[in-house]
C-alpha cells in the first residue's frame, strides 16, 4: 500500500507491505538505525519516536497507521544544532553505559522538558517510566535530565 510520511522534515512516499512495523520502516526502509528495537512488545521504549509531536513506541505500530504523519527520530531531534541540551547533559556527565536505551530516552526526555519548565525528580522519573535502561540504575540519567532542565534553551 502507498504511504506518505514526513520524517525528520523530509517527505517520503512509498509502497509498503501493510504488516510493516513503523520501527522497521524507519530502520530498514529509511536506514535510520538510531531508533532501536529491544523488547518488541511495547515495554522497553528503545523504539521511541515522536509521532505528530508526541513520543510513541514505534514497535507497536504499523507504518500504515502512521501514514500522513510527521515523525522525528533521534537523527532529527536536535534540529540541526549538533546535540540538544538533553544529549549534551547526558554525554557530559557520562550518564549512560552501553547506550542501547539512549535514543528512546533522549526523545522522551526532550519532549518532556519542552513542556515542563521546572521539573522535580519524580516528574522526570514518571516521564521516563516507559523507557527501560538495563545498565545505569537510572539515577545518572535522571540527574542529567534535571541538569538539562536548568539550562536555558
Amino acid at each position, binding site marked *: *500500500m502507498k504511504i506518505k510520511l514526513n520524517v525528520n522534515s523530509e517527505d517520503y512516499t512509498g509502497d509498503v*507491505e*501493510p*504488516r510493516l*512495523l513503523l520501527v522497521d520502516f524507519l530502520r530498514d526502509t529509511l536506514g535510520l538505525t538510531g531508533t532501536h528495537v529491544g523488547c*518488541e*512488545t*511495547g*515495554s522497553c*521504549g528503545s523504539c*521511541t519516536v515522536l*509521532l505528530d509531536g*508526541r*513520543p*510513541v*513506541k514505534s514497535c*507497536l*505500530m*504499523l507504518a*500504515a*497507521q502512521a*501514514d500522513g504523519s510527521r515523525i522525528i527520530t533521534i537523527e532529527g531531534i536536535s534540529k540541526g544544532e549538533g546535540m540538544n541540551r538533553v544529549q549534551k547533559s547526558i554525554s557530559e556527565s557520562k550518564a549512560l553505559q552501553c547506550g542501547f536505551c539512549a535514543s528512546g530516552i533522549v526523545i*522522551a526526555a526532550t519532549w*518532556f522538558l519542552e513542556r515542563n519548565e521546572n521539573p522535580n525528580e519524580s516528574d522526570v522519573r*514518571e*516521564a521516563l*517510566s*516507559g*523507557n527501560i535502561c538495563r545498565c545505569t540504575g537510572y539515577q545518572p540519567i535522571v540527574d542529567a535530565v534535571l541538569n538539562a532542565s536548568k539550562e536555558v534553551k
Partner: protein
Amino acid sequence: MLYPPQINYERPESISEALSLLNEHSRPFLIAGGTIGVLNLKRRALSPDLVIDIGRLKELKGIDFRDEKYRIGSAVKIYEIIDSEFNGPGFSLLKKAASSVGDPLLRNMGTVGGNVCIGDPSNDLPPALLALGAELNIVGKAGSRNLNISSFYIGPYRNLLAKNEILGSINFAEPGKGYRWFYYKHYIRHLDHSVVNVAALAKVEGKKIDDLRIAIGGMSVRVPTLIETSWIKGITAGQEELQRVVKLASEKCLCLDDRHGSAEYKKNMIEKVTQMAFLSVVGGVL
C-alpha cells in the same frame, strides 16, 4: 523476532464504511491505537482477513459535556483524558485511572475504546467507568444500542460486542458537587498487570451515606466488577458497614495461585484496597 502475519489493511473514512467492511469480512479485526491489537498480531494470536483501522475516525473523537453528561468518543486517546480541562469529581476519577495506564508513551497511543474493549481484567479505565455508571454506545449496521458497562464483560477478554459492532462512545453523568473519589492500582512491577485496582465515589450528607460506588479490577478478579452497595444508602457508616463492604469485595476474588500472587495474597489485597477506598471516600464519618 515478533512480526505480524501478512495482512490486508484498510482505514475507512466513516463509521458506516467501517461497519460495511466488518460485515463483508469473515475474520475482520479492529484496531484503534493498536497497542494490544498490533501486539497480538505480532504474537500471531490472530489471523484476520482484514485489519480495520478506526483510530482516526472523526465520529469517534472528542470529549463533550452537555446537560451534566460527558460523551467520550471511543477513539479518544488516553492522554486526551488526562489533558482535558474537565475537573468535576467524576471526571477527576477517570483522569486518575487514565494516568495509571502503562506509561506516557503508551498513553499517547492507546485509546479509551481499546482500553474498554480488550476486557483485560487489569485494565485501568473499566473500574473507574463502572463506578461512574458509564453507558456504552455501541453501533452496528442496524443502528445503535446502549449498554451499561456493568453488563458488558462476560469473562476475561470477553465482552458483549458482536463481531460486526463498534464501540462508538462512552457516556456518563458527572456525579457533581459533594462527591469524593478514589483510585488506586496495586502492581508488583511497573507495566505488569495489576494485582488489584479499585475505583470509588461517594457522597456523604451529614453523617449519612447518600451514595457509595466501589468497583474493583485486576488479576485477582475474573472481570472488572461493581460491588453491591445500594443497601448502604441512608446509613451512618461505621466499622460494621466497612467490614460488610470489604467482605462483599473479597467474595469477588478469583483467588487462583499464579504469577500475580497466591490466592491468599490476592484476597488480602482486595480487602486492603477496598478498605482504603472506603475510608478515603466515606471519610471522617467512621
